[in-house]
């Protein structure tokens, strides 16, 4: 009887300790969007030069185009250090030719504290897909309502299929 009771107490204690010692779960806050949510950007790309598809966005013709994609970001906290920051992943699919893609993510506002930019570039081999990732993004001044956008150069035949923004930490 005593042995059973003590075993029960030990088990209960062990469960408690296990829960108490469990590492704090890093909160992740993912926001997904299709490339067709993006807009024509710059002096050389017009809306008619882009194809807006269920599975993304791509140039209508055999030309390089520029796009601007906006993200909805919650206002829980500013992105202020590596543990409380954001990562953007952008999935591209090349057509029947190699696709040199480049993107610049912009955190912050020119009308507040200035902006920080995060860029990535790679050439995606013909017919293949790849992901551009910009990680550890913070906004100047820990600005909690900092807008967030990304510009991309979308080469001929290439499709921007999907974008995933992950706010990491308590932000």
């Amino acid at each position, binding site marked *: 009887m*005593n042995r059973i009771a003590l075993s029960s*107490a030990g088990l209960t204690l062990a469960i*408690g300790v296990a829960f108490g010692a469990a590492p704090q779960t890093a909160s992740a806050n993912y926001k997904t969007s299709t490339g067709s949510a993006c807009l024509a950007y710059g002096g050389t790309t017009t809306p008619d030069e882009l194809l807006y598809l269920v599975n993304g966005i791509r140039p209508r013709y055999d030309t390089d185009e520029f796009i601007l994609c906006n993200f909805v970001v919650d206002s829980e906290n500013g992105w202020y250090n590596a543990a409380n920051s954001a990562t953007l992943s952008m999935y591209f699919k090349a057509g029947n030719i190699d696709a040199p893609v480049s993107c*610049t993510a912009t955190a912050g506002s020119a009308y507040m*504290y200035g902006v920080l*930019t995060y860029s990535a*570039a790679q050439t995606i081999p013909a017919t293949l897909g790849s992901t551009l990732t910009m990680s*550890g993004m913070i906004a100047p001044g820990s600005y909690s309502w900092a807008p967030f956008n990304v510009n991309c150069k979308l080469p001929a035949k290439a499709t921007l299929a999907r974008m995933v923004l992950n706010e990491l930490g308590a932000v």
Partner: protein
Amino acid sequence: MSARTSFLNPPSLALICGCAVATGLLALHNAQVAPAAVQEPYFDTASSEPVAQARSRAATASAPIARAQGEQRRGDLDPVEIRARIEANIAMLDARFASEPLDAVWAMREQRALDDFFAADALAAQGLPLPDGLQTACHSATCRVSARFADPVEAEMTTQHLAMHVAARLPYGAVMPRALDDGSIQVDAWYSAARIVL
């Protein structure tokens, strides 16, 4: 002791103590994982400070970021304060740039990339204007660009295209625009191989 078993016997006491400790640890764990699961109005009308922000400020009081008491993080700042903050950022970025050692080979290569971008025909091909007062300098990890544009749209489009142009080797940037009295926009920008923190 009577024939009836008392709940204060040693095994029962051990069980109760174990449960109490476990309950305490569970409560502590829950407090750490979910500190703010309370529904409440977004703005505290008494202080006009967003409640969520006040709460998060308290929750992150030990975080390395310095959060000045009462500092406005969400609403618009007045133009004087915006200007002061931008100029403080420029001074800080310039101090870092000045302390960066010079690597002639690296600097020449990146300078060439900037020159390619700002060539008149290259700008025209992208529908971008030729800026006034263009100055560029590169050290060993960072290039600094300074230029004046007729309006904010030209300034933004040029700096965004420039960031994409240098994306492969200078993926991190900081852009600080200032409106001048004549309505033009002075832009100071830093593009770097190293992460920029403000």
